[in-house]
């Protein structure tokens, strides 16, 4: 209970602030409407009117909740208005991109740790790749792939891999390098091969770092996929919901999609956390 309380208090505070902001931001439009109709509103009526608008500047929390519920449970999941359907489109590209990115990051980290030339030549490029604004790169990736006849999941997965390989690369390089001089000397004194030193020492040493970086990477992969969905013609995926919502001023739809994406990210990160707990416990690293 003592752990739930602070969370609840913060949550309540946010919801209260949100309602306040919704009233303040939606009031001008309600007043405008009332003035046009010539029926002045009491304060109570004004507040009520800010809660039920179809295209509010800031939808009230319960409107977003209803939008989310409609999107998730109120539609057949094959419907184009279903958040489950859009969520799946986004999730599949995210997972594909995450898998590619994590594997590429880990593979590059192995190369960097074992070869000084790779260390000097790859790292600057890896860092440079992350300084390029993804918003600028994404449309180009989509266009290039589309011109080659590849659309749908693959180009989005490439963008999400682009964002997710980096945290894994950095985390794993750090992780593979945690064994100290003494531990490496120890391996040498047993005449261990490089492969043995890697699999018996470096890899298990790096696992805590691996999981930390996978959590960052999976969230980044989701962002990458959503960004990749924006220029794709906005037909499918949570990114598409965001974009079409903003085309038509459907703020409730935007916020619902936003929360769906946040929820998806939370689930993915929690899932990795769970795997982390199980693996570290089985290794005897969790106390």
């Amino acid at each position, binding site marked *: 209970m003592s752990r739930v309380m602070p969370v609840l208090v913060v949550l309540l505070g946010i919801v209260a602030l949100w309602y306040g902001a919704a009233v303040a931001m939606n009031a001008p439009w309600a007043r405008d409407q009332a003035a046009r109709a010539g029926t002045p509103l009491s304060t109570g009526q004004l507040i009520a009117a800010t809660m039920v608008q179809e295209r509010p500047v800031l939808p009230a929390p319960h409107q977003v909740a209803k939008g989310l519920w409609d999107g998730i449970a109120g539609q057949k999941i094959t419907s184009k208005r279903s958040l489950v359907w859009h969520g799946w489109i986004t999730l599949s590209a995210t997972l594909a991109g995450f898998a590619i990115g994590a594997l590429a990051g880990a593979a590059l980290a192995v190369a960097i740790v074992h070869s000084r030339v790779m260390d000097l030549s790859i790292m600057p490029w890896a860092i440079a790749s992350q300084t390029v604004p993804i918003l600028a790169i994404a449309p180009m990736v989509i266009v290039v792939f589309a011109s080659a006849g590849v659309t749908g999941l693959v180009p989005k997965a490439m963008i999400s891999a682009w964002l997710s390989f980096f945290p894994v690369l950095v985390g794993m390089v750090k992780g593979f390098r945690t064994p100290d001089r*003494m*531990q490496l*000397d*120890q*391996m*040498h*004194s*047993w*005449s*261990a091969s490089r492969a*043995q030193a890697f699999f*018996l*020492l470096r890899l*298990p040493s790096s696992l805590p770092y691996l999981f930390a970086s996978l959590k960052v990477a999976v969230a980044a992969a989701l962002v990458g996929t959503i960004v990749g969905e924006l220029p794709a013609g906005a037909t499918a995926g949570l990114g598409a919901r965001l974009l079409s919502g903003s085309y038509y001023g459907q703020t409730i739809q935007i916020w619902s999609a936003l929360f769906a994406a946040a929820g998806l990210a939370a689930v993915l990160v929690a899932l990795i956390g769970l795997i982390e707990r199980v693996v570290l416990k089985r*290794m*005897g*690293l969790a*106390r």
Partner: protein
Amino acid sequence: MIEAKGVSLTFQTADGPVHALKDVNLSINKGDFVSFIGPSGCGKTTFLRTMAALERPTAGTLSVNGMTPDQARKSRAYGYVFQAPGLYPWRTIARNISLPLEIMGFSKPDREARIARVLELVELAGFGGKYPWQLSGGMQQRASIARALAFDAEILLMDEPFGALDEIVRDRLNEALLELWAKTGKTIGFVTHSIPEAVYLSTRIVVMSPRPGRISRVIESTLPRERPLEIRDTPEFIRIAHEVREGLREGHSYD
């Protein structure tokens, strides 16, 4: 068994060459317990590391069992015990001891028999299933000694293995180490900066001095091989300790 002739080792650093070892001559016989003592920078650890092929001498020759240190390492001639236990936290004590055996390709039944034997030897029988963090520092260091013994190396090289432990635990482990040495007949090279430890354990004490790292005195111990802890209060012990202290002072008078 171990023969060093004119061994020198110079590290090239940004501040110029550092003479870690200069013209070191020493021979260690089978079954000896040789301690290396001296102030930091005297090259005692460096010399141990050259014997173990963890460093390469820049001049002179060093042979271990008639082989180069590198060949000796490959033929599992020595077990090396570092300052810290260096046990893997994700492996139990038994599996930590199993680690070098796995690397060297021992079969599973053989590994299990060896683990049981060395755990017995360091009085850790029954602790094989524990993780390192469940053991005290002294027990961890004993486990690391067990690991160095598991593959039956004839030579045991120990680099300040008890340096991080308190004096009471250290006394106990010194006693246990002597018992183990008597039981196994290993040749032991032991680096320390404690005079009583060196005198209590060794058949021979090599006093070293820094800049450049070299041997300043070799003292043969006249103490019997059988040594209860009380031997440290005998005049004989105190005389040898005094001689070691003299040797250390001599080394210092150079700078």
